[in-house]
């Protein structure tokens, strides 16, 4: 009797859990979430990295590229933003939704889309996909848009070494993983090739998976910059997205003669940083805008989609250093040295490391 009762309870429990689950799939087996299979004329689909629009950095630059292509080729587009702490199947879901609704090309912004793009591209062979910051996705319809961030970082490293009076400079990285370590490697090499006596302080704000702390928290950037200023650093390069804004602000308000180096865009021209722009010596720029624009152009206008690894480097202007702040541009000797280094990198005389 007792055993029977128990058995009944257990079976009931199992039944409820499983039936509930299976009923859900059974109701619509075979059909998928969208009935309309368009031919791919909806325009550009863009899937953002964490942070989305308004990050003043990478996502915004990609969006600008998409916007430019939309205006120029008179096409439409849609951009989607992820949530914090997603897993790969969330990214897959997002890309599938774009491709299925007929968006072509589809761009995944950031290394987090790497695996997802590979999976979805096989499912939609007629759609062109691109992923930014990853080079390991092979497929007839995938473009890997990559940048040689170590080269631009090398150049701002040269600028930092020439500018420092205390022989100490700082590097602030957002999150410690290979992409950001490329920035560190290039910067450190640039500093030491210029002046081996200069000390480089290196600080990372967070480890994966704390991306919002690393790239989205100006307070963290400010604290790190404060620490490096106290350790006598007078030029600080932050490769930390929006967290870097905090570093720039602190450096400007420290009352010391100290400089900041920006990242991704020419931050001297960034409206939200206008009050502090005097101390932004230069920026290591990465032309995500141009990369996205060119990719969309190759699909929509030229009808010859980019595939494989599409590098963006110093030689094609994909990365560069900013020449906006008069403090740098008026220093003829410094600019000459940076330009000389740039030439050497382009013609292969200087090989820049990608790992610290």
């Amino acid at each position, binding site marked *: 009797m007792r055993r029977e009762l128990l058995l009944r309870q257990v079976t009931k429990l199992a039944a409820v*859990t499983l039936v509930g689950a299976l009923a859900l799939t059974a109701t619509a087996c075979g059909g998928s979430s969208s009935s309309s299979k368009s031919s791919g004329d909806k325009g550009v689909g863009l899937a953002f990295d964490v942070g989305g629009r308004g990050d003043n950095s990478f996502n915004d630059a990609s969006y600008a590229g998409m916007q430019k292509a939309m205006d120029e080729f008179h096409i439409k587009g849609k951009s*989607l933003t992820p949530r914090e702490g997603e897993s790969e199947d969330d990214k897959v879901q997002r890309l599938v939704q774009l491709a299925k609704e007929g968006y072509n090309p589809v761009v995944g912004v950031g290394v987090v889309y790497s695996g997802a793009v590979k999976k979805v591209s096989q499912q939609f062979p007629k759609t062109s996909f691109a992923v930014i910051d990853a080079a*390991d996705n092979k497929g007839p319809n995938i473009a890997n848009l990559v940048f040689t961030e170590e080269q631009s970082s090398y150049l701002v490293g040269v600028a930092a070494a020439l500018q420092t009076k205390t022989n100490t400079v700082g590097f602030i990285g957002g999150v410690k993983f290979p992409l950001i370590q490329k920035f560190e490697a290039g910067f450190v090499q640039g500093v030491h090739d210029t002046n081996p006596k200069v000390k480089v302080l290196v600080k990372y704000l967070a*480890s994966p998976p704390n991306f919002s702390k690393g790239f989205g928290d100006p307070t963290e950037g400010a604290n790190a910059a404060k620490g490096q200023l106290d350790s006598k650093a007078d030029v600080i390069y932050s490769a930390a997205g929006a967290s870097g804004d905090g570093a720039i602000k602190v450096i400007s308000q420290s009352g010391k003669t100290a400089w900041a180096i920006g990242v991704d865009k020419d931050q001297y021209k960034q409206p939200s940083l206008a009050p502090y722009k005097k101390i932004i010596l230069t920026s290591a720029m990465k032309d995500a805008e141009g990369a996205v624009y060119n990719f969309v152009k190759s699909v929509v206008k030229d009808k010859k989609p980019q595939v494989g690894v599409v590098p963006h480097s110093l030689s094609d202007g994909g990365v560069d250093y900013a020449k906006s702040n008069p403090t740098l541009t008026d220093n003829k000797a410094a600019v000459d040295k940076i330009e000389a280094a740039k030439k050497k990198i382009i013609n292969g005389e200087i090989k820049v490391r990608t790992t610290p």
Partner: protein
Amino acid sequence: MKKFDKDRVILGIAAPVLAVVFAMVLSSLIVLISGKNPFDAFRLMFEYAQGADVQVLILNRATVYYIAAIAVAIGFRMNLFNIGVDGQYRLAAMLAAAAGGAMHLPGPLHILMIIITAIAVGGAWAGVAALLKVRRGVSEVVSTIMLNAIATSLIAYLMHTDILGRQPPGSNNVTTTPLDDTAWFPGIGVDVDGQRMEVYGFIFVAAALGVGFHYMLSRTKFGFDLRAAGASDSAAVASGVNTKRMVLISMLLSGGLAGLIGLPQLLGETHSYGLVDFPAGIGFTGIAIALLGRNSPVGIAFGALLWAFLDRSAPNLDFNGYEKEIATIMQGLIVISVVVAYELVRRYGLRRQQQQVGEQLAQAARKNPEEVAA
């Protein structure tokens, strides 16, 4: 007793239904404030979830959430707040992935070894907090939060390319060595417009865990001790329960189960642990779902499905120009509503019970006045 059961069932269903309705009303208000039509928003979510592909995704997500919530619930039943589930599963998944990648074994054995590694690591990490609590009286709330942070750093350290990590050429991610296909957990294939999708085979493991949890709670001495100690520490001690031992065991169980959270994805989908893209934060979602499901295996199943549905249908809001945060707000509102609703229903039930008992006594008194007077 029998008559009371019906009331209880009605009251039991009333609370969650009330909560979901209340949460929907509140979220409708929020959508209205954002200047959009709430019914359209709900319609978008439901329509999107009609697709078989989305349903597969919902089931997979619910599987993961279910395991997470059960892990949390075991602690809750013992009055232990294991906030460390998050760190426990990430560390367990990472080390299990690394161990699995280094092993070459025939299928079932390979999978078994990975599962055992994950349980052991999760349990050991929770065991640190358990030992601190039993030996030194350190609150597990504090120690597990700290251990989460330590786990993050430890994973970052172990994933160095010269230790356990490897960086595929051209990739900006660091992963563990990919698992041989002997370690791929078979899934249930579903055909969606000619495209094969898979429901995690782990859904059966999750269901079995739920059944096991139910059995343990209601049919074993350990389960009885657990509930007794959770309800009242001193009463449990008085009746001869060794509460320190209970704390240790339930924390180890909670951590061991937490170790399984990452496995559906690891064994069923990515086949390696990626430093940059392995999901984080599921442990915290598990806490919310355990609250939602009132720590009961069936309640948690519904909670996990509801949560997964909201998660998976939110992208369609974003796609159609609605704020996708609506779904996040709804998740939060549902948890609050559930807590409030259960309390309201509990008070109502208590009052009802008192009235009934009072009435019965009064009736009895009317029948034999002498006896009562005497």
